């Protein structure tokens, strides 16, 4: 049984722009699926449809929307709340009782490595730490489905790679079904069990790759021949899609 599935999903915006056409794929529990494509190809629209923020204009999307983790491109922390109060937000909105909330907030902060920064405000944190807080905020609800919308795109490469590894650690720990959006090929290959290549607008899936490497993945995987070959194939498919 899939945790999330798209069936011939299409999206045409009111201004006539066709963002997605005939997108079909599924994410099973324990899978980490990445959609890689050029900017403006409609990747984010896919996540907005999955989460219910937007509606598709054709096809169907199956997912239990009662509890979805969604990490945006920006950390979107509330500047007037400390790290702890930010991480607490979703639990608060779902009226989780305060003892349970305190416990899960502490656990999530620990899990993303922000212990000791509970009382800091977002303005006091670096970009990477804000992203960690954003991850923790979603983790609190222990969602079975996790959507990532290019969450590390704005970070420097070192921070980005570290957060890639940590996201995988969370993935192993929590066992959610992950759907990750990126325009970085190495990020896509490193993270995923499966990579879908999306063409430029209108977005279509033009190639799909199973990524055979075992978890947990070693950072040095990025420099192995098999990794380079797979990245090369994905890159080739992307260029083909871009023509």
């Amino acid at each position: 049984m899939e945790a999330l599935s798209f069936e011939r999903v299409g999206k045409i915006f009111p201004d006539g722009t066709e963002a997605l056409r005939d997108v079909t794929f599924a994410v099973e529990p324990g899978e980490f699926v990445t959609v890689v494509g050029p900017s403006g190809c409609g990747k984010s629209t896919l996540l907005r449809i999955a989460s219910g923020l937007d509606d598709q204009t054709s096809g169907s999307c199956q997912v239990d929307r009662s509890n979805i983790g969604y990490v945006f491109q920006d950390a979107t922390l509330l500047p007037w709340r400390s790290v702890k109060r930010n991480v607490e937000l979703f639990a608060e909105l779902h009226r989780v009782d305060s003892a349970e909330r305190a416990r899960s907030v502490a656990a999530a902060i620990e899990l993303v490595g922000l212990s000791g920064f509970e009382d800091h405000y977002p303005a006091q944190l670096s970009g990477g730490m804000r992203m960690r807080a954003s991850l923790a905020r979603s983790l609190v609800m222990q969602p079975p489905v996790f959507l990532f919308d290019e969450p590390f795109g704005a970070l420097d490469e070192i921070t980005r790679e570290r957060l890639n590894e940590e996201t995988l650690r969370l993935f192993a720990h929590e066992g959610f079904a992950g759907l990750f959006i990126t325009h970085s090929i190495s990020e896509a290959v490193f993270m995923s069990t499966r990579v879908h290549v999306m063409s430029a607008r209108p977005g279509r899936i033009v190639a799909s790759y199973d990524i055979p490497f075992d978890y947990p993945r070693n950072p040095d995987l990025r420099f192995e021949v098999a990794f380079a070959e797979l990245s090369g194939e994905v890159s080739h498919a992307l260029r083909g899609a871009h023509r």
Partner: protein
Amino acid sequence: MTDRDVLAPETGSAAVVAEASSAVHVTATATGLIPAWRSRLVPPILVFFGFVGLWYGYARFVLDENGRKTALAYPHTVLTTFFGGGPEGEQPWQLLSALWLTFVVALVGLLIAIVLGTLFAVLMSQAQWVETSFYPYAVLLQTVPILALVPLIGLLFGFGMGARILVCVIISLFPIITNTLFGLKSADRAQHELFTLHRAGRLTRLIKLQFPAALPAIFTGFQISAGLSVIGAIVGGFFFGRGPRDLGNRILLYSNRLRPAEMIAAVILSALLGVVFFQFFGWAGNRLTRSWYKGER
């Protein structure tokens, strides 16, 4: 200019910024504090003395030479007026009781405007039709010449404290409405979507998102209106020319009786009252929102 620029404490606050490496940098150290204060205090003091010098010069060589004794007031005669030693023996309590009355009128008027203005802004932010229906009249409130309105208010509501408070409410309502409304709409789309994703209701969204996001703008509105409210209190007293003897009332009286020293003293007091009102809300807003931008340490 962003809110951040407006609200950042100018100098002297040590901001602790944590980096990814958990290294801690302390900016604006204690050594930088004293020169910063000096460079901020000395120039305005010099300007003050320059102004007082010009005043003496004008009083001595223009007014005094030409025998315009009735308009003559030296800075020191104004100063002694505060302590009851004015040229015509004005008692200090007369100015102080006038100041007290103006303070009460301005404060009560401002508080009413804050309650009404915030309430209206919240309603406007929640329903487009409320905004569409009432906003034009809020603008009208601002554009109608208050000087023309004051005699009318006196005619309709009498010349007592109530009518003066009404003048303050009218003059200070608009900045509160616009700034609060702007603030309530300032939460960005992604922040709203967080609440949409978790199916937050309208009230939750207002309390947990829109209102805190609006706080800097709300206090900017309060600050502007605080200054205006004092002006409203003066204008009301001045144009009514009767009823309770507040500062505006006194200014008119001294003006009619050709007592420039007392008049200038009253004007100075009203200006200082405005500064105190204005600064208080700036300080309060700063305190409330400081940690969002700089951290509490």
